[in-house]
């Protein structure tokens, strides 16, 4: 029946049927039966010719006059656009149904009251993005990060409170910006959590770094040791060992350390090197350690092969001798008292 040779008429009639497609098919047939003949005659009659106007408006008028329900959703419509619009209408209708539910409305009110939380979170997202643009670590407080954070908070909250929305384009911009920010949320969350993790790891490392390698005196690392004999004369080439017979090295890993950088109170830097008398450059327990100057270091920061270590002088000017109770030390010590175990009761 729709196969009409009258192009515009058939096209318009098809469009009208399309707009009625939510009705039962027999209803549509009844409503549009003879439509082509009427349209064709009207086209012959009128000055306007084959201009019939808007087919959807025409269909709506037809439907209203016939006492049928207004257009709802095009379930039986063919074509992708009808499917999409139909699905969209289903979605909207479904949402309206859900939104009108009392419990859902209460839930909605609950979330509305949480909006300030979103404002603050949004400020954090803005802050993270801006701080990243400035290359600032987000979790370190500095004048710049403080300013950025404060600015982000003011902007986000003022937006949330409905300020600065006098113009329509501002509102659209805010909506677009919100969408963009929501898309950025996962990235910011990941960045924040990794920043927190690294801070925690740093703190943990700082705690674990308690026992410093090498030799420690009252919590401060000892870089060098100067030994004096009983007369107050400085000794050199003194090998120190602990109670287990292990070398008392001034560095934590003697075999892997070629040079140890130390600074003095005046800010000068010197480079201690292990004793050359111990093969393998592991003589970090032979005191006092010699040092080399900065120009003896190669590009790799290690002493060059020509570097000649210089003896290190102690800072203390002179060391007094010990009070010696025995004026004549004997070459072979003879025990004067033999300890005899006295059993206790």
């Amino acid at each position, binding site marked *: *029946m729709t196969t*009409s040779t*009258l192009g515009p008429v058939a096209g318009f009639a098809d469009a009208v049927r399309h707009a009625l497609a939510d009705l039962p098919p027999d209803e549509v047939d*009844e*409503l549009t*039966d*003879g*439509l*082509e*003949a*009427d*349209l*064709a*005659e*009207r086209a012959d*009659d009128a000055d306007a010719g084959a201009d019939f106007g808007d087919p959807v408006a*025409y*269909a709506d*008028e*037809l*439907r*209203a*006059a*016939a*006492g049928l329900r207004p257009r709802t959703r095009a379930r039986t419509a063919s074509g992708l656009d009808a499917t999409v619009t139909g699905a969209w209408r289903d979605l909207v209708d479904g949402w309206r149904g859900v939104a009108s539910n009392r419990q859902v409305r209460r839930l909605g009110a609950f979330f509305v009251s949480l909006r300030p939380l979103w404002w603050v979170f949004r400020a954090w997202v803005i802050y993270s993005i801006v701080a990243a643009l400035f290359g600032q670590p987000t979790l370190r407080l500095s004048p710049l990060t403080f300013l950025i954070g404060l600015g982000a908070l003011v902007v986000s909250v003022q937006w949330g409170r409905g300020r600065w929305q006098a113009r329509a384009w501002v509102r659209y911009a805010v909506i677009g910006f919100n969408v963009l920010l929501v898309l950025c949320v996962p990235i910011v969350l990941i960045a924040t959590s990794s920043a927190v993790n690294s801070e925690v790891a740093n703190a943990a490392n700082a705690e674990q770094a308690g026992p410093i390698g090498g030799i420690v005196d009252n919590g401060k690392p000892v870089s060098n040791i100067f030994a004096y004999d009983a007369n107050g004369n400085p000794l050199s080439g003194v090998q120190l060992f602990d109670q287990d017979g292990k070398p008392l090295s001034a560095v934590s890993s003697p075999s892997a350390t070629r040079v140890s950088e130390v600074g003095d109170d005046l800010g000068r830097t010197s480079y201690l090197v292990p004793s050359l008398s111990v093969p393998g450059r592991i003589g970090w327990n032979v005191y006092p350690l010699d040092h080399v100057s900065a120009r003896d270091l190669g590009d790799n920061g290690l002493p060059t092969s020509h570097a000649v270590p210089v003896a290190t002088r102690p800072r203390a000017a002179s060391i007094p001798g010990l009070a010696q109770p025995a004026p004549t030390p004997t070459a072979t010590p003879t025990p004067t008292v033999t300890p005899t175990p006295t059993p206790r009761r």
Partner: protein
Amino acid sequence: MDTTQLLKGVLDVAVLAAIRDEDGYGYDVVRRLRAAGLEDIGDASVYGTLRRLYSAGALTSYVVPSDGGPHRKYYGINAQGRAMLEEQRESWSEFATTMNDLLEPSSSAPQLRKIGEKR
């Protein structure tokens, strides 16, 4: 005054009157109504009204094939349609009289009545 709003209320009786004496197809009825002076009447409104009156049982309907063109659907009035027309004609007449009385400027003391109120 926007006559399309007025037309909506009287479409049924107008369409019934247009085919009281002779059967007609859709555009034929439109043409008759326009010829009678209802210039603003919409095609689709008339077709929809015909369809509704047919569903209500006030009209008969039949299809007439045409040579080389689309077929035409004719509508004719039946006894029920005539009764409906007569009833609506009376309602209209009463309503029109009421409105005329109301709108007549020479009337000294217009007495307002509700529509459909018995005199």
